[in-house]
């Protein structure tokens, strides 16, 4: 099998390598346009020169996944600007806060939105060369900007390619947002660093027809998107490999993909590790092999600890305390729980941060607890948090408190008193969730506090 031969140190290294070795090979496709590696490098160099002359130092990119979006990121990197990748669908006020926090002095993206945000622009940075900031929305805390570099991202792409290589004949469909590290590395860099063509998805409105339009052989998706593509029967016959990340994938989806002759691999990683550190390559898709540059150990309580010198973040932007809390002596404490099987493969078993610690010292493991509540109530849009020191059920949808209590009665009687639901909050608001569907625990807690 063809294997990615080069470990790239920077975007410039990657682009220049293929511009010389396979200049005419297609690098990027977007709508009706195809750019060869030579044309891509030339375009990026030209734009980098313009950015250098502009005299700015920190570019905020309002990501839309377009060809120009990719070129702008690469060009800003070549020009030595700090790059901040922003989710353009966020509220303007939120974006302004993120822009101020990260010292952005130049914006790229939708013109109208850039105008609206321009008042938030800052004075820039002095030492931003090579840095690329991704926002991570942990399920229990405020979003933080993770400082990665073009080097760490390229190394991460190599790391994944070493386990799951693409060939220059492949077309990788990039459907995920570039502002998320999984989308950036596994939707874009994975393909380019293997010399393959990357077809850039044309946005959510084309989820139904992008596979038919681009005829990809590989795609990176989150489980929700895989379910959608399978259910709507919009997968092309040439598609042979699906890389799933950023969430649990139900077995039924695997079976449906397998029936179409598609190989499904899971990737496990975090923004802080520049994306994947373990990936499944054969047999059981839930059993993942650790990538070559990474060392994974388990703490006594099962927490997954990662050493990834080539791919590790520099830290959280301007938040040294938050960095020290999770990155100690080069070891990243993930907050995820796992186990190794007899073959040394990693299985993810849960999330440590999904634990409520009660005043009596007992703990509630939320996924398990909420699953039992969902079963008892026949309703999935619910979550548990603390109000004061007691568990509160947040029930999103229409419901009657007394009837819900009745339904919960049998389950509650099986639990210690301290773990029983003390109250029910019925709301017509949706639960706050991340892009991958995880409940934003911190935000939920805030909403409950605000209503109390």
């Amino acid at each position, binding site marked *: 099998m063809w294997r990615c031969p080069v470990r790239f140190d920077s975007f410039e290294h990657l682009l220049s390598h293929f511009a010389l070795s396979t200049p005419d090979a297609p690098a990027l496709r977007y709508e009706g346009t195809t750019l060869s590696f030579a044309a891509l490098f030339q375009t990026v160099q030209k734009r980098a020169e313009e950015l250098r002359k502009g005299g700015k130092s920190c570019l905020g990119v309002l990501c839309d996944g377009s060809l120009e979006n990719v070129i702008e990121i690469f060009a800003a990197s070549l020009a030595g600007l700090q790059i901040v990748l922003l989710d353009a669908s966020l509220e303007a006020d939120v974006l302004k806060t993120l822009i101020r926090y990260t010292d952005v002095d130049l914006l790229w993206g939708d013109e109208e*939105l850039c105008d609206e945000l321009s008042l938030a622009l800052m004075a820039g940075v002095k030492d931003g060369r090579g840095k690329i900031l991704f926002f991570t929305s942990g399920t229990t805390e405020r979003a933080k900007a993770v400082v990665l570099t073009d080097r760490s991202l390229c190394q991460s792409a190599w790391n994944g390619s070493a386990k799951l290589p693409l060939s220059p004949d492949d077309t990788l469909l990039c459907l995920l947002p570039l502002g998320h590290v999984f989308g950036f590395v596994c939707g874009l860099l994975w393909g380019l660093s293997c010399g393959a063509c990357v077809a850039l998805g044309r946005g959510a409105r084309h989820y139904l027809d992008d596979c038919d339009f681009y005829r990809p052989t590989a795609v990176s998706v989150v489980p929700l998107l895989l*379910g*959608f593509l399978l259910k709507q029967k919009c997968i092309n016959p040439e598609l042979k490999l699906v890389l799933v990340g950023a969430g649990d994938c139900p077995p039924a989806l695997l079976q449906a993909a397998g029936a179409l002759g598609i190989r499904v691999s899971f990737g496990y990683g975090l923004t802080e590790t520049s994306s994947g550190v373990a990936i499944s390559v054969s047999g059981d898709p839930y059993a993942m092999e650790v990538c070559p540059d990474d060392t994974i150990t388990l703490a006594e309580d099962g927490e997954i600890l990662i050493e990834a010198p080539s791919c590790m973040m520099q830290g959280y932007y301007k938040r040294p305390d938050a960095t020290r809390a999770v990155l100690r002596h080069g070891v990243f404490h993930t907050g995820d729980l796992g186990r190794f099987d007899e073959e040394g493969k990693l299985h993810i078993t849960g999330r440590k941060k999904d634990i409520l610690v009660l005043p009596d010292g007992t703990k509630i493991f939320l996924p398990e607890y909420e699953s039992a509540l969902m079963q008892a109530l026949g309703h*999935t*849009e619910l979550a548990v948090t603390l109000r004061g020191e007691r568990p509160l059920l947040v029930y*999103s949808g229409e419901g009657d408190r007394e009837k819900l209590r009745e339904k919960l009665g049998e389950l509650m009687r099986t639990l210690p008193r301290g773990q029983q639901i003390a109250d029910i909050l019925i709301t017509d608001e949706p639960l706050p969730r991340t892009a991958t569907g995880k409940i934003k625990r911190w935000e939920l807690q805030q909403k409950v506090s605000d209503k109390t």
Partner: protein
Amino acid sequence: MTRQEVLEQTKKVIYDCFPDMKELDLQEDSVINTDTAIDSMGFVLVICKLEALFDVRIPERQWQKLQTLGDVVDAICKRLK
């Protein structure tokens, strides 16, 4: 095309995509863009079908701000040619 006609056709698209929702008798203030009604991918499907039906284009940035059936109808009416 009147607003009422847009409303009725929008409801029809939703019911076609999600037959279970016929039982809910959707009103203008019904919250539809939520996992208790239509999940995020389902909402993508509905918007795509509505854009094709009415020949309009609602910027993706606006999609998640459309919470109720009335919001969706407003977004379409605003862009009708």
